[in-house]
């Protein structure tokens, strides 16, 4: 019983951190399960994918209701994130655990560096759409074909769809290999390269995470990579933690939290790297 509660609590902390810092929580869940509970990396990734889908579905429903997420852009990019997640899921079962651990350590360091530069906190703050800082500078005559124009939203025009496709492929592979949402790739890409306002990019990325993670998650489920005794309490904890944190985001010192989070990521990356070394 104590183990069950510990797992729910651990999921709650990961979900709260993830929600406050604009991440899915997967970067914390996988190390929690492998380093904290001694689970094999692949089972940890399977459980993390479940958690990522739960938080994505819950958050995306609110974003759609408020008309913040761009459904058409998200679904167009999902063709590529889901394809790549399918490939990533198959590759994950072919790679040795040690290689996955080393690659995960590299991912953690990348996320830590991104957070240290401030991008991660930007994701959590979610400025208003009329905030000039929130929108990447758009050219006066936004180039683009009919498809890009049809995916644009009120006040912005989607551009560089090709770069969006490439970034989506990377995000999909990262999601299935490491059990994360891939928002750390998609949000800056949509905002900076494609001209999508930050708030819309964050919401659209959240919407896409569900389909991306479910393409990878199905492979884990059907190949015995999901432990229901671990995934269920963790997912409920993550759901509760993320829901609670989103209500108290205004009362938390995000700068302090970010410093703490970067420190945790660097220590965790070191431990994951040690796990991966022969």
């Amino acid at each position, binding site marked *: 019983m104590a183990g069950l509660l510990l797992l729910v609590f651990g999921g709650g902390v990961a979900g709260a951190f993830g929600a406050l810092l604009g991440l899915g929580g997967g970067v914390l869940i996988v190390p929690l399960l492998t380093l904290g509970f001694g689970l094999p990396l692949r089972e940890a990734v399977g459980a993390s994918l479940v958690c990522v*889908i739960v938080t994505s579905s819950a958050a995306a*429903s609110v974003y759609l209701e408020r*008309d913040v997420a761009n*459904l058409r852009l998200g679904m167009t990019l999902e063709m590529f994130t889901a394809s790549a997640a399918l490939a990533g899921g198959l590759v994950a079962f072919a790679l040795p655990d040690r290689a996955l651990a080393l690659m995960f350590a590299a991912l953690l360091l990348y996320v830590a560096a991104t957070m240290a530069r401030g991008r991660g906190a930007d994701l959590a703050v979610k400025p208003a759409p009329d905030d000039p800082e929130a929108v990447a500078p758009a050219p006066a005559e936004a180039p683009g074909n009919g498809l890009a124009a049809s995916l644009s939203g*009120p006040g912005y025009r989607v551009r560089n769809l090709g770069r969006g496709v490439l970034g989506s492929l990377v995000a999909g592979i990262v999601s299935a290999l490491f059990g994360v949402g891939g928002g750390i790739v998609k949000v800056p890409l949509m905002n900076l390269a494609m001209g999508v306002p930050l708030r819309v990019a964050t919401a659209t990325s959240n919407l896409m995470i569900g389909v991306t993670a479910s393409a990878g998650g199905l492979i884990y*489920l059907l190949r015995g990579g999901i432990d*229901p*005794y671990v995934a269920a*309490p963790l997912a409920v904890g993550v759901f509760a933690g993320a829901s609670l944190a989103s209500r108290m985001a205004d009362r938390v010192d995000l700068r302090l939290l970010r410093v703490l989070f970067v420190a945790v990521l660097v220590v965790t990356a070191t431990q994951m790297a040690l796990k991966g070394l022969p």
Partner: protein
Amino acid sequence: MKASRLERKVGLVLAVGSAVSVGLLTLGIVAMGASQIGPLDRPFPRFDLGRVPADLAAIEPAGFLWLGLLAVILTPSVRVAASLVGFAASGERRMTAVALIVLAIICLSAILGAGG
């Protein structure tokens, strides 16, 4: 800003899917606690869709857990299917094709996953 009807319906699908998933998973966790099953007990039950109804009827934790996990994983696909219907109804042929492709990729994942 007010969401369009399609966005509202798709959002509702996700909200209902999340609530059902978390509800089923919570029932499974309660059943785990009642059956003295720990999260690190080995071996854990493998997914077998054919066993789920029998496990549910017997109030076995695995039945609720697998049904909840299936609901989690399939909720985004139901969202895509709902979007497909909405796009088709409104005559958006390009987006209908996009939704069909996304659904096909998810089906391919299931086929390749089952084949491994």
